[in-house]
């Protein structure tokens, strides 16, 4: 590598400050611009519940909420999360109590290997915040950004239906996870 290139390399790996609130806790880190948000969550914050299943933004395994909106955290750089409030799967259960969507995935056998599950739960949280009473078709369309190889989606759809029911009857939880969207 030529010295000029080496110098450029240095500039490009220069770190930027990124301050985020993740699951209610403030974090500050210095990160390389190229660090993907998902790697930041996993490697710097130790939040390994958010998974990586592809290189091309198809699978949704990395889905989290950014200011209440479902986002594929593999398709955002950590530096872009500056000042944002993030919710990951680890922030869904509160005080030892599962979020109704988590409970529904458990009750309806909405997971097998579980690898896609955090992404689905976060996508479902967003979906139900937008549309608390979705039809089966709306659920299937609402989850189009997430792929599961194990369940054939049958029980995932059922889980979201069940969650919609419990969430509409149960009093609203303090942890409104997906308030955002338009």
């Amino acid at each position, binding site marked *: 590598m030529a010295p000029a290139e080496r110098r*450029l*390399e240095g*500039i*490009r*790996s*220069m770190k*930027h400050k990124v301050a985020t609130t993740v699951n209610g806790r403030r974090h500050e880190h210095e990160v*390389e*611009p*190229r660090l*993907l948000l998902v*790697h930041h969550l996993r490697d710097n914050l130790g939040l390994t519940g958010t998974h990586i299943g592809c*290189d*091309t*933004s*198809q699978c*949704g395994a990395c*889905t989290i909420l*950014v200011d209440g*909106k*479902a*986002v*594929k955290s*593999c*398709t*955002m*750089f950590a*530096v*872009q999360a*500056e000042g944002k409030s993030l919710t990951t799967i680890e922030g869904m259960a509160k005080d030892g109590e599962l979020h109704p969507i988590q409970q529904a995935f458990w009750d309806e056998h909405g997971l097998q290997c579980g690898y896609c599950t955090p992404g689905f739960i976060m*996508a479902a949280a*967003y*979906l139900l915040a937008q549309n608390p009473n979705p039809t089966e078709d709306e659920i*299937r*369309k*609402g989850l*189009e*950004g*997430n792929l599961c190889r194990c369940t054939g989606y049958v029980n995932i759809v059922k889980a979201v239906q069940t969650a919609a029911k419990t969430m509409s009857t149960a009093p609203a939880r303090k942890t409104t996870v997906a308030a955002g*969207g*338009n």
Partner: protein
Amino acid sequence: MIPAAFEYARASSVEEASNLLSKFGEDAKVLAGGHSLIPLMRLRLAQPSALVDINGLKDLDHIKEDGRKLRVGALTRHVTIQNSSTVKEKLPLLAEIAGEVGDNQVRNMGTMGGVIAHADAAGDYPTLALMLDADIVTNQRTIPANEFFKDLFTTALAPDEIVTEVVFPVATGAHKYVKFRRRLFDWAIVGVAAQKMNGGWRIGLTNVGPTPVRATAVEEALHKGAQPEEAAQHASDELDPAGDLRASPEYKKHLARVLTKRAINQAEGRQ
């Protein structure tokens, strides 16, 4: 995969963004929603030397009615367009198209300006922009859509030029976008948009060539009173699409005809 290293700067104004682009040089790129750029960078098919993040430019995130025009800021996210009551009222076809781009997560991040500037043959907004004679406004000039899309992933934009707005005409008549794809979240194999406007039809085709196509032959046939079925036969008149994994050239041409018929019929409330 991990993208190659790059320099990063947040712009706080369009002017600053443009200056940063000039400073960083030709390999620098604008970062908007990132939903075309970041996947390419992860595959290292794109290795920009620097990214100028325009996500902080809130004044580019807008939807404004301006007489007979609808002005959509470059940073307006698909989800905002999809749900905007202004868009639903003034150009409902745009709201419909926005709701069909990618999936929820993609729509929460991807932007109008990003789709227009990226100029993917399968991008959905370029079709609408072209067929409705929209204007692409940049920090330097206004470019009519029919002069903007030059080739696959190639536009009239200069390296330091930034799309700020896309200006569509208001159109509230019968309309439909028929997007044919294998999976719900896929890009169009072929897409056809139909919009009734000023007493005539505007027909646009997605992914049947390197750039979007306006099906003027269909528009003319309809103007002369041809039935949709008949007029739609002209949808493939001038097409020479490249085949890909999903569709052969002749199948794409066939789809252009079938979907054109469907788009017109469905726009008018027929099946």
